[in-house]
């Protein structure tokens, strides 16, 4: 066992991920050499994952306020008012590094962590999503990682009892050495019953709840702040192990305890466990905090203070309780079979004191641990712009039927049914729009009855676009989530961002980050979608190869009447198919070029936010007014893929009549111009809709009619919907079964 008072060598400092100047900062702050436990505490508080030291400067530029925003970034999750005294709580967080090393456990603990963030605030989780990005399918590790991650996400969420209603799955060679697992969770609470981490009152008991502390996950947050190399598998012991059963008990016990009125402050033990949670509670409340580690429930004997302070054992909470309700609180936790121990108290010293076996193992200034963390203005370079591709200069397919089938059967555009059928997406009985459409919709009952509301949920980003132009790609991620929410009839109200990038110490990576955030911020402001929570994951690199820059967005929309929602399925014969928005045939970075020809060239489609706003408002209003029978946003694969998806969902075909084109046909059918939707409506309604669109300055063109069992475009394309489905549904199961 390491003694607490060993000399702190430069090697030891480096092993803790601290740079020499950062260590000097520690010496200056405390005026002496730290103990081993103190060094561990600093390394936990000052790593990238917890301190946001490279990103903070730029995060501050994002719009985080809005009429509905009750709590913005800085707490466990953001809270947004949805009327009737209710609020939605949500956040997205990465668990990338652990998932690459140990896919099943990495994914489970990612899901567990984000659920805990949500119920720590007093909310019962009502929906989960996950944005997953894997290496190319032929890479030797990909199959294993996909299989483990999907099983892990399901294994945890299914058992916990939250519907997993949406998400994204992408494959690209740039994720060969670093997969991304971004987990989103949302919960519901009464707007006047939000629980925070700020401790209040001196001499109040600090209580440890949940599972016991073990030696797992020690230095997990530090691992998540370093690049990978060929020896990364040796980091397996830093991955934690999840127990959804314990989490379910913790949820029920925590909510019961909160309802009892005993809770003053609550913080879950996530990254850097006991250290981060205790420091945060004290620092936010302008209080000191003293921990007595002898009282911490441990899974194994002989754990040192250092180990206890850095353990990332899962399913644990720290609370400050009203002293006179302590016994009542303990009874609730005993009922649920969970550990309950008073492990410390609040003080007025502003010191963070850790005692073990009667000895002081750490005694640090509590505010400085967070406030004085290094903050960097990393050098960055403006990303270079790529030339705009001339659509006429891009390859036309030899056969449109084959091209469409190949696209629908490609790793990135094929059906994700194999994934979401492993997730319980129906539990709680509120799933109104199920996975497979633009956005999921979950019913929210009003507290006093009346027609139910709805919440829309979507995850979006197109990393290829962000790589090609981080600014436009950042805008596009927000714009796509905006469109997906509008298409189901929900008004976008707020977003959470999960910013996955490479090594920020490289100026070109930092340049991607800066430009992408500029784009995100601009789009959020224009579309009135404040960012209320989020997470930054940097150092996603292996042997110097970075991931595609991936600012994943989780967005939430609100419906006043959930029954008004529409899906993407072609529904009734003779309905008119209407293309909304302008098409010029943007081929740069298109799925068509990438999936069919392996080409990643040109500038990605630019996003005109004013047009997105106008178009989105028009479509959403039409959905809510009950004028449409289906609505679908156009994204990967463009118009033809969207039409095929609508046909497959409705098991019904359509006859498409081409308008006069001033671009090559393949650019019209596969171009990925933004701010576009396909909707369907009855013939009478469609005529009126097109007139209203013209009045609103929104381009709208009738391009065909629903009916038959094939998707037909004159002499160019005639393909049975059953054949589309076959190709679309077969890639994923085929790949996973090794066929």
């Amino acid at each position, binding site marked *: 066992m390491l003694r607490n008072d060993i000399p702190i060598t430069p090697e030891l400092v480096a092993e803790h991920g601290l740079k020499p100047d950062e260590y000097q900062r520690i010496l200056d702050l405390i005026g002496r050499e730290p103990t081993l436990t103190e060094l561990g505490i600093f390394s936990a508080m000052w790593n990238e994952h917890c301190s946001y030291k490279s990103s903070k400067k730029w995060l501050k530029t994002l719009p985080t306020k809005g009429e509905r925003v009750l709590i913005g970034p800085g707490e466990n999750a953001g809270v947004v008012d949805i009327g009737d005294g209710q609020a939605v709580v949500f956040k997205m967080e990465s668990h990338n590094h652990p998932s690459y090393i140990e896919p099943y456990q990495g994914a489970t603990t990612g899901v567990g962590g984000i659920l805990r963030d949500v119920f720590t605030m007093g909310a019962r989780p009502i929906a989960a999503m996950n944005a997953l990005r894997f290496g190319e399918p032929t890479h030797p590790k990909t199959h294993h990682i996909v299989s483990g991650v999907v*099983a892990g996400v399901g294994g945890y969420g299914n*058992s916990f*009892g939250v519907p997993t209603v949406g998400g994204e799955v992408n494959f690209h060679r740039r994720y060969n050495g670093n997969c991304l697992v971004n987990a989103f969770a949302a919960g519901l609470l009464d707007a006047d019953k939000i629980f925070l981490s700020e401790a209040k009152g001196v001499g109040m008991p600090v209580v440890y709840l949940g599972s016991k502390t073990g030696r797992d996950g020690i230095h997990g947050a530090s691992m998540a702040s370093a690049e990978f190399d060929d020896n990364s598998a040796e980091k397996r012991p830093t991955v934690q192990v999840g127990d959804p*059963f314990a989490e*379910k*008990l913790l949820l029920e016990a925590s909510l019961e305890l909160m309802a009892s009125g005993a809770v003053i402050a609550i913080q879950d033990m996530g990254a850097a466990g006991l250290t981060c949670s205790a420091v945060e509670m004290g620092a936010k409340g302008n209080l000191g905090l003293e921990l007595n580690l002898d009282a911490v429930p441990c899974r194994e004997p002989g754990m040192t203070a250092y180990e206890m302070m850095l353990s990332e054992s899962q399913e644990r909470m720290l609370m400050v309780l009203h002293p006179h309700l302590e016994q009542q609180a303990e009874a609730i936790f005993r009922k649920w079979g969970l550990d309950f121990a008073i492990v410390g108290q609040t003080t007025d010293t502003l010191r963070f004191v850790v005692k073990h076996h009667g000895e002081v193992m750490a005694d640090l200034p509590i505010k400085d641990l967070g406030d004085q963390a290094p903050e960097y203005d990393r050098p960055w370079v403006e990303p270079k712009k790529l030339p705009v591709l001339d659509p006429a200069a891009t390859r036309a397919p030899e056969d449109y039927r084959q091209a469409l089938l190949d696209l629908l059967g490609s790793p990135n555009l094929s059906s994700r049914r194999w994934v979401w059928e*492993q997730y*319980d997406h129906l539990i709680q*009985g509120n799933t109104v729009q199920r996975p497979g459409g633009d956005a999921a919709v979950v019913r929210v009952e009003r507290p006093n009855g009346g027609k139910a509301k709805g919440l829309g949920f979507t995850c979006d980003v197109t990393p290829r676009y962000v790589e090609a132009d981080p600014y436009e790609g950042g805008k596009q991620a927000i714009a796509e989530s905006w469109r997906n929410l509008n298409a189901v009839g929900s008004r976008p109200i707020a977003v959470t961002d999960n910013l996955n990038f490479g090594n920020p110490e490289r100026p070109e990576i930092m340049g991607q980050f800066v430009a992408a955030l500029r784009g995100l911020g601009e789009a959020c402001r224009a579309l009135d979608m404040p960012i209320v929570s989020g997470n930054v994951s940097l150092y996603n690199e292996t042997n110097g190869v970075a991931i595609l820059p991936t600012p994943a967005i989780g967005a939430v929309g609100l419906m006043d009447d959930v*029954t008004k929602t529409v899906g993407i399925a072609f529904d009734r014969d003779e309905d008119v198919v209407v293309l909304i928005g302008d098409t010029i045939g943007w081929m740069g970075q298109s799925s068509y070029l990438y999936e069919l020809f392996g080409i990643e060239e040109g500038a990605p489609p630019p996003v005109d936010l004013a047009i997105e706003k106008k178009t989105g408002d028009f479509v959403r209003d039409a959905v809510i007014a009950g004028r449409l029978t289906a609505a679908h946003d156009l994204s990967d694969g463009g118009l033809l893929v969207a039409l095929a998806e609508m046909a497959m969902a409705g098991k019904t075909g359509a006859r498409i009549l081409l308008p006069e084109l001033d671009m090559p046909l393949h650019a019209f059918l596969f171009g990925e111009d933004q701010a576009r939707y396909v909707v369907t409506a009855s013939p009478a309604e469609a005529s009126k809709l097109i007139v209203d669109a013209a009045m609103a300055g929104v381009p709208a063109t009738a391009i065909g009619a629903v009916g038959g069992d094939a998707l037909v475009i004159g002499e160019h394309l005639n393909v049975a919907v059953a054949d589309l489905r076959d190709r679309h549904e077969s890639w994923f199961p085929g790949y996973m079964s090794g066929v």
Partner: protein
Amino acid sequence: MKSAVLVFPGINRERDLARAFEVVSGVKSHMVWHTETELPDVDVVAIPGGFSYGDYLRCGAIAARSPIVDAVRRHAERGGYVLGICNGFQIVTEIGLLPGALMRNASLKFVCKEVRLRVDNATTAFTSAYAPGQVIRCPIAHGEGNYFADAETLARLEGEGRVVFRYCDAEGRTTDAADPNGSINHIAGILNERGNVLGMMPHPENLIESLQGGIDGRGLFESLAKVA
């Protein structure tokens, strides 16, 4: 219809089930904690889905040894109705109120989707609102729903019309492709000899309102409401 919904640690569809009872009968269910030893005065005891005790050891095995179980047994012996859904079905077989066992899905994966069920016995207290042979839609969500029983038990179940629900396709044909978990004889739900205990893997409680995509699950609760 007075109903009790049992709550074990790790159960997670108790609210869904209680809601179904309330929507159909207008009466709130009693939620009964596993450490109780007496049941309230009810007609139906329902054991919901979930992962009682995390499915550790064996699905339903630990819950089947809870204090409340004796009361459930007595309730069944008195002729009271017992409905076990999903984990509830597993628990009911572990208690011994129904024969057979639920094994890991043949695919070895958890599966959540909508399937078709054929009502093979519409004369029971749980199914009288359905027509004989009716094909209904019903969600499933389980990793261990692969029903198995030995040949003798199976012959009795089949011979006595105690196979109440069977997985089938849209036309009512029982095929391997339409069976989501590999259950023997495509069995989705079975009845005890006396006809007062039903266990089934699918979740009719998640398809009782049009907003949920359909109301095919209502029939089960309406049937119970007629007799209870």
